[in-house]
């Protein structure tokens, strides 16, 4: 009964992954029958002579830090508001969740329309300078655009997980704190926040790993541009392998991406798990 599952996983994930590690020590253009063994040359190149990869790593890391913080803070804030007995909360929850149903490739495209045609009209109507800037043409602004669009698309997902977490906080504890004279802010930081630590662990984990492998939204919003200003590691790997046909070198980069994500998430999980408390 387990055989079909094991075969599928081995053939489509684990063997390709192990072969990637092997190919990362070779020169291989995808057509050769036998890739040429070149030892650590790929790794030497990517550590010392690949400016594009360095830029992609820097972009990915800054992008990750900003999106993880902004997404989680905003999603938690929304969750707290929409978990209260505010009127129309189901409609509001659905509204903030909608962007998450749309594929990132479409989201990127919709925003390309907003940044170009939409902003032209906004600036004609309001004369606000913000709308006249070149949000996809300038490197720094394009970075902010990618952050904005990624956060916009993903917030609903994390909001939903936080709402589920908030619903596990026992009412008695909060009521006891009210009687003890704790204010709303104090209650949130001293009771609610420690108790929903498991949700925070999960959300930070997902937002971290999604940000570190971000691809689709950039592919359709900026295609890594202008220049290489918004090229993520995943997009750089894609280009190395499928545009430049340097498959061996691409696999070396993908091994680096794997190690990066593994290290970051393992650190995050152990660090966050330690802070989780029992009810």
């Amino acid at each position, binding site marked *: 009964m387990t055989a079909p599952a094991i075969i599928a996983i081995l053939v489509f994930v684990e063997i390709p992954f192990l072969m990637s590690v092997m*190919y990362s020590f070779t020169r291989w253009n995808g057509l050769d029958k036998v890739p040429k063994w070149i030892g650590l040359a790929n790794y030497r190149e990517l550590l010392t002579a690949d400016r594009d990869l360095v830029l992609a790593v820097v972009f990915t890391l800054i992008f990750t830090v900003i999106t993880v913080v902004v997404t989680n803070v905003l999603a938690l804030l929304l969750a707290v508001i929409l978990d209260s*007995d505010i009127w129309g909360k189901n409609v509001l929850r659905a509204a903030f969740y909608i962007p998450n149903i749309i594929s990132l490739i479409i989201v990127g495209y919709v925003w390309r329309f907003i940044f170009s045609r939409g902003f032209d009209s906004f600036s004609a109507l309001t004369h606000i300078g913000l709308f006249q800037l070149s949000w996809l043409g300038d490197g720094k602004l394009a970075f902010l655009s990618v952050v904005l669009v990624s956060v916009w698309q993903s917030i609903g997902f994390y909001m939903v997980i936080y709402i589920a977490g908030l619903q596990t906080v026992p009412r008695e504890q909060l009521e006891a704190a009210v009687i003890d004279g704790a204010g709303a802010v104090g209650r949130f930081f001293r009771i609610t926040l420690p108790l929903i630590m498991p949700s925070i662990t999960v959300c930070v984990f997902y937002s971290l790993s999604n940000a570190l492998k971000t691809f689709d939204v950039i592919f359709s919003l900026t295609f890594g541009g202008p220049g290489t200003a918004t090229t993520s590691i995943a997009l750089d790997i894609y280009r190395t392998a499928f545009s430049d046909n340097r498959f061996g070198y691409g696999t070396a980069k993908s091994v680096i991406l794997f190690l990066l994500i593994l290290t970051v998430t393992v650190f995050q999980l152990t660090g966050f798990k330690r802070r989780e408390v029992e009810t």
Partner: protein
Amino acid sequence: MKRPHAALFLTIPMFLIAAVYLYPLILVVINSLKTFAEIMANVVALPTHLSLENFSNAFVLMKYPNLFFNTLLVTVLGTSGVVLLSAMAGYKLSRTKTRYSWFVFLLCVAPIMIPFQSFMIVLVKVAKTLHLTNTTYGLSIIYWGLGVPLSLFMYHGFVKTVPKDLDDCAFIDGCRPLRAFFQVIFPLLKPVTVSVVVINAMWMWNDFLLPLLILSGAKQYLTLQLAAYNFFGQYKVEWHFAMAGVLLTITPAIIFYFALQKHIIKGMVAGAVKA
């Protein structure tokens, strides 16, 4: 009914924020109904007269029915394969307690930690060798391998809550293991099955990178997302067609979402929290 003032006080700002939040999508709807000249003149303004012409044009230009069918086929075949493989294996591995089964379990769930981008290059080569590229069936089969680890993990955890006596009863009644599983156990796993279906279906329907790598050479087998991307590239400045195309592409997922909202939210939370 009396409501707390604070909550009421927040309602109006929150609805305003939600409206701004969804404004990009509202603009898509408005502009999908306009003529090209109207879009170029002013994006914000409402269309002067209602016409669904953009939709019928985009429908034909994209070859929408064909794409819809391809994507549906991939999603259905992919999802049902994942459900079948992961339910059987998750059940079996949860019931057998040997060192060997623990090792197999780890082997099956370890890929949760392997990002797709770190093996996609070789996966394409493997898929070519197995003649799985440029076909809908091939793509769905590849999804089995990618989807099973997380789903198996979810089944594995849930099976523990199903009393083992039930298996024994079925055996005593003379059921073979496979039949006992499908007739007795599988129906009891329905809560996880719903989550697994939701997570996998939403993912496969919206996925872009894998179809891009596997299907790019076969025009007749493209999925919606992939074709939409090509379509936008082709009609880069013809925003009126493109906006209608966007709506045609996202509508099925939105309908699916509103039809199964409760299950989807529950499934997404379960999938995220259990992993």
